[in-house]
């Protein structure tokens, strides 16, 4: 099971972050470009103590202008309301027809805490534990209205089948949520949860709740070690480790595309910089690096962050991705329509439903068992 050579298709994602850009047009253009390359998803980072628009809003704005690509905004869990966060992510899934993801992150700084004035900065380990609880309660709230709960029957005046609504009665270390959610169960059941597990303190939460994990590392050995740790940990939480997608997250600078990679790059791998692992070189050598790390089973794919947003995304799609497609290593069209389908992840069964949905994988995401139902269906 730990042998992973060629086990699943290659997954590719790109960041569409742009410094101090607030108009919709340039984001739409970037995401469309990534979609032309058939990428699994784009990410847009977010945080409160820095300039930038609300990431989930931006990707909602982009959703109607795109058709297949997954949309993964960062939404933090430290100063936000879990109930509102899950509702917004579920709604992104509705407006994108099943393409939403959510990159879970924490706000560790005192500066962010002062913007809210409710609590002081807390240790990162505690924040990641809380983030795990938010991820957990979000899945419960997504399940709190069963898929066919929204019955509209004018004759009887019934709009909801009350046996298909469930309180979640969640009591976490810093918050409680009663439920149910206001938003009907999202098209994907559970939008895809993404965690950057480079920081060891995020790793338990990633192993337990994430569908996709980013790891920023420069070497094959580092990545392989973190991936093995994540898979073991996921197993310990009762999850099938094959439901976890581990992506190497790299900054890519393809500015000098005519030349070969700098020494120490290309097939040799990226190098550590203040911005994280950086690959600098040509699109072709990047394709070599991706091929090498993917085919030897080091990672399931890559999350690539353009150093120069417009230029490098274009070179990535038209150079690197085109080459990978030509070699038959990456999809040339989207066979599925949801982000879960791109990632090869089944739509999770509802933890509150009495009869699991046929063909769905029970416990694929949360590892929850139906016995955990409180106030559930009789």
């Amino acid at each position, binding site marked *: 099971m730990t042998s992973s050579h060629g086990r699943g298709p290659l997954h590719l994602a790109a960041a569409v972050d742009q410094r101090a850009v607030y108009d919709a047009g340039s984001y739409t253009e970037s995401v469309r470009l990534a979609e032309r390359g058939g990428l699994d998803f784009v990410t847009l980072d977010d945080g409160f103590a820095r300039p930038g*628009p609300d990431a989930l809003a931006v990707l909602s704005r982009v959703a109607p202008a795109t058709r297949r690509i997954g949309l993964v905004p960062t939404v933090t869990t430290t100063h936000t309301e879990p109930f509102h966060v899950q509702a917004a992510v579920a709604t*992104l899934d509705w407006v994108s027809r099943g393409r939403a993801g959510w990159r879970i992150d924490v706000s560790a700084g005192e500066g962010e805490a*002062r913007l809210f*004035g409710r609590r002081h900065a807390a240790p990162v380990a505690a924040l990641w534990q809380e983030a795990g609880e938010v991820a957990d309660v979000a899945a419960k709230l997504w399940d709190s209205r069963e898929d066919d709960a929204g019955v509209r029957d004018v004759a*009887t005046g019934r709009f909801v089948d009350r046996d298909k609504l469930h309180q979640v009665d969640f009591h976490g270390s810093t918050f409680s949520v009663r439920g149910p959610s*206001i938003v009907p169960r999202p098209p994907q059941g559970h939008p895809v949860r993404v965690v950057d597990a480079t920081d060891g303190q995020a790793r338990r939460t990633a192993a337990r709740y994430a569908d996709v994990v980013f790891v920023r590392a420069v070497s094959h050995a580092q990545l392989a070690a973190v991936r093995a740790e994540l898979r073991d940990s996921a197993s310990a939480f009762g999850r099938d480790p094959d439901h976890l997608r581990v992506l190497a997250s790299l900054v890519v600078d393809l500015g000098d595309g005519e030349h070969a990679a700098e020494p120490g790059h290309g097939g040799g791998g990226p190098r550590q910089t203040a911005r994280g692992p950086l690959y600098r070189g040509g699109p072709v050598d990047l394709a070599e690096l991706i091929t090498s790390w993917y085919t030897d089973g080091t990672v399931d794919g890559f999350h690539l962050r353009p150093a120069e947003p417009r230029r490098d995304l274009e070179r990535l799609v038209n150079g690197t991705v085109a080459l990978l497609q030509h070699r038959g290593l990456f999809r040339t069209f989207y066979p599925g329509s949801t982000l879960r389908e791109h990632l090869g992840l089944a739509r999770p069964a509802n933890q509150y439903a009495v009869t699991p949905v046929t063909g769905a994988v029970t416990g694929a995401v949360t590892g929850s068992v139906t016995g955990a139902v409180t106030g559930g269906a009789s």
Partner: protein
Amino acid sequence: MTVRKRMHLAAIPHSRIEFSSFEQLARTAERGLFDFFLLTGRAEGLWPLENKGRIDDVDVAGRPEPITVLNALAAVTERLGLAATVDATFNEPYELARRLATLDHLSGGRAAWNVVTSSDASIGENFRRGGYLDGTERYPRAAEFVATVRELWDSWTPEGVSRPFAHRGRHFDIAGEFGVPRSPQGHPVVIQAGDSEAGREFAASTADVVLTRQKRLEAGRACYADVKRRLRKYGRSPDDLKIMPGVTVVLGDTAAEARERAAEIRRQQVSPQNALLMLGRIWGVDLSSYDPDGPLPEIDPVPDSSITQGRTRRGDTVAIAEKWRALSKEKGLSIRQTVIEASGRQSFIGTPEAVAAEIDDFVQRDAADGFVLVPHLTPGGLDEFVDRVVPLLQERGAFRTEYRGATLRSHLGLSGPPGRDEDMTADASDAREQYQQ
């Protein structure tokens, strides 16, 4: 064509979830040159009402989170204002100011915020803050919330320079730098719904639009005059606040047909089951075992029962129950018939010509600045209004024939953001501060 006072129009879509249905309705509203599209989504109005710990199923099919839907609608519309109903009780100023400013940027200046407050204890159980605020605390917190949000919106200069902010008040103590530059409208449009004394004062102090309950002409004129009169205290002119009653419209080719359609809609809205639920909420007890086609209960209503606790009360429930009993007795009505009768008729019923004339009259005689069309069960209701009534209003010179500007402020004829302290007289500034205490 004489120059008339022109009305403003807005629409609330049906409660749905599929994005395509929102898209279609928003496009219809834009085709009709409406000022804005208002999404409700407050926890309160859609919460599964509970009865003895069970979740009741009255019109709670669930709905999406409004700001997220409006951002998506910004991609498929060009001029229509996009208004989100968001609770000021269970949110925080920094995050909400940021989300609304982002919507304003992404829509090119079309964002609006309908400020509501929650009084429902069961909603508080979903949030970090928890609990609930009673009536005396809710408006002061909401007022400070809106003032704080405006401080954040003003923290960037129009030239794009960020200035640090610090707000220390009774409810919020925050400081730092706001992450979003000044948005196209400066401040997104602020809408306030409410007819209460506190609601009117709140609207006069800070809102751009106030949503009221529809009344008959004379009562509407009195309400209009009362709200406009309050503006002076805050250094604002009558044009700074638009008064828009929520209305339902039923059209027919003849007056008789319109009346018949209206009656049919009321019958559909009050199913036997809903009749028992609504009655149970007045009586304060579970009446689900009663026959909806039978007489009203003999038992007396229970004031302040667990069923009504912490909810927005519909006045004194005991008095309402007495009124309903009298109505039932006088006309010999069953439970369901009584609820249908008591729940009121639609605001405007008639031919397109009659409705256009009547709503124009409301505006010309200063009972309203415009209307928010509230949906009912008729499918295609908005299309019908846009196709049949809007052209008649335009012919009368009572409604725009094209969008002149790009922003919602421009559609509404509002000047720059209201209530920036440097623009206000000292008296007005004092009045507002006093109000926030």
